[in-house]
């Protein structure tokens, strides 16, 4: 769907993007991660043709990015905003027509969305008469009204209360199921694990990590397990097939240990060693969360 190749973007004082390449697969949800000021917005603006890269290329469905693609992309900027004094219905239709829809087509689609999100009574309201959350909802509709193939959302959940954030999340998933590719930037890691098929991590203008979320998390497994057992506290003498990372007291005389396998051992060896000694409640492999990976990678470079 989207292929970003060796993008460099230089601003007066600093380099916002340095040789960044990405592949966004069609029909997937792609997360663009990175701390503030990493260059996410610069990259998004290049994809939207708001700015042009100094070098490098972007391909959209195999074609080099050009003006005709603008109508196939929907963009929700991080800084939200609409014309304050214009009526919502009129404004949405105007924005959709700028994306190439006819007036009739835009009106019909807008009716559908207003109906769906319970916004029917807003049509003749001005933006300044709406609450912040309502404005956000209206802007989301404006982003997807022209049925774009690629939807770019910059921090889509910021500014929504939990109820509306959930609603918007459901809408994003539904749009994705209906074939739209979603690219969104965020630093809310829990939404990444929940939504994204693949991610790229950008830090200090460089891409430092990318791939499918499952693969990334698996690749950051480091043979660490959690074991919970009940009974007397075990004393380890060094002959066990693992090393202890931490030990904790659980409830009801249970104990939790975090352990790391010694090389060439497996989880089975751990169970074999422990089974005769105590009663095991649980053994679980520790898979690092995206949050942990994010912090680890960012700190590594900083």
């Amino acid at each position: 769907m989207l292929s970003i190749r060796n993008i460099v973007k230089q601003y007066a004082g600093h380099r916002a993007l340095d040789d960044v390449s990405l592949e966004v697969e069609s029909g997937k949800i792609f997360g663009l991660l990175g701390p503030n000021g990493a260059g996410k917005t610069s990259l998004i603006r290049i994809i939207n043709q708001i700015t042009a890269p100094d070098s490098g290329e972007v391909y959209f469905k195999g074609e080099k990015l050009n003006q005709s693609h603008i109508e196939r992309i929907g963009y929700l900027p991080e800084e939200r905003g609409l014309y304050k004094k214009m009526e919502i219905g009129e404004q949405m239709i105007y924005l959709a027509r700028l994306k190439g829809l006819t007036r009739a087509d835009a009106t019909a689609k807008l009716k559908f969305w207003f109906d769906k999100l319970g916004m029917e009574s807003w049509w003749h309201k001005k933006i300044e008469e709406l609450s912040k959350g309502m404005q956000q909802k209206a802007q989301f509709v404006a982003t997807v009204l022209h049925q774009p193939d690629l939807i770019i959302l910059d921090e889509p959940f910021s500014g929504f209360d939990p109820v509306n954030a959930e609603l918007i999340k459901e809408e994003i998933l539904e749009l994705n199921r209906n074939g739209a590719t979603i690219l969104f930037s965020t630093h809310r890691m829990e939404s990444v694990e929940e939504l994204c098929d693949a991610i790229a991590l950008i830090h200090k203008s460089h891409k430092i990590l990318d791939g499918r979320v499952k693969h990334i998390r698996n690749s950051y497994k480091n043979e660490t397990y959690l074991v919970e057992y009940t009974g007397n506290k075990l004393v380890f003498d060094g002959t066990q097939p693992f090393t202890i990372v931490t030990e904790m007291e659980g409830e009801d005389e249970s104990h939790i240990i975090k352990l790391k396998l010694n090389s060439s051992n497996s989880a089975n060896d751990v169970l074999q060693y422990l089974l005769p000694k105590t009663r095991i409640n649980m053994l679980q492999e520790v898979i690092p969360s995206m949050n942990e990976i994010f912090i680890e990678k960012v700190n590594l470079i900083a």
Partner: protein
Amino acid sequence: MKKVLLIIQREYVTRVRKKAFIIMLLAVPLLLAGMTALIAYVAKDSQVMSKPQVVKVIDESHLFEGKLKNAKNIQFVPANEPLDKAKAGLKENEDLSVLLIPKDYATRQVQFLSKKKPSYTLTNEVENQMNEIALTNTMLANHIDTALLNQAKKSRVNVNAMEVTEAGTKDADVGTSMGVGIACAILIYMSLFIYGAQVMRGVIEEKTSRIIEVIISSVKPFQLMLGKIIGVGLVGLTQFTAWIVLSVIATKIIGNNNAGGIMGALQTLQNIPFGYVLGCFLFYFITGYLLYSALFAAVGSAVDSETETQQFMFPITMPLLFTYLLSVTVLYRAPDSPLAVWLSMIPLTAPVAMMVRIPFGGVPGWQLGLSMFSMVIGFLFTTYVAARIYRVGVLMYGKKASFKELSKWFFYKE
């Protein structure tokens, strides 16, 4: 192109629909009509008395007897009663007054008595007639032929300014030309300011409401800027057209009811080549507006709020203000002076300076052509420069822009 049209449409419609626009549209011609009516009414009222006035004349000198002529609504009657009785009668009748002429009227004051302060027209009439009579009396006393004198009085000199052109001599109505010239200068100066500032405010509004990023993900910044400039410009043209049409209608209606001074003023306007002036006005309004509004748009893009515009506004408005002040003080008196000619060639000052010169009619074709050519080059140039600043500026927030910063933006690649 389709998108630019959409933007023009939005900019135009949202402005034209505003209450303030409609009120302005109607208020100005109404105000003009109202003023015309008021002037006509006042003028009429001061010329003629509303009610017949009777003036009782007590002439102790006997020199004015029978010589005071009745005027419209003024009737002179000899008072066949003593002063005290006549005075008492005044208290009962407002439209009655007493003119008391003492024996030696040349040294003692003539008195005009009435219940209320008499109107200026009335005393003026009395004074004029008495002076005339007194003069004639003095002449007669000194044996001067009054018939000869009356003849001599009629030979008043009128200076008629004539202009020699190829088509022959024609009336050069200098006063009207001056008036129209100054009016044109003021009108073009104000409208460049008003509509330029509207463009700037529109840009700032888009920037502060943050919708700008949504819009320029759909259209190029240049298209947005162009759409806004043209849209606002059309609003200006609509306003002018409506004003002219409504004003003409309004003054026609009022003018018909009480013809006189106003129709006379309109008559002299017809000595001016109306189509030529209007055509030039439209040309200089459009090109001047395009030139300045592009600069205003660039300023709007560079700031985060209207309060920050001051430092950029000053150098932009300087040439305009400078020419405007020169126009209303010096240029209209010397429309063909080297200063006026030069100012009407420089694109930044030409709209105002040239519009002062145009109504005089003496601008050579080559000067007009060169000026118009420089206007077109000028607005193309400022639009190009402004667009390059604008495309960077609209996405810059929280950065205090300076002229150095702006010049950097100009050289940014996309």
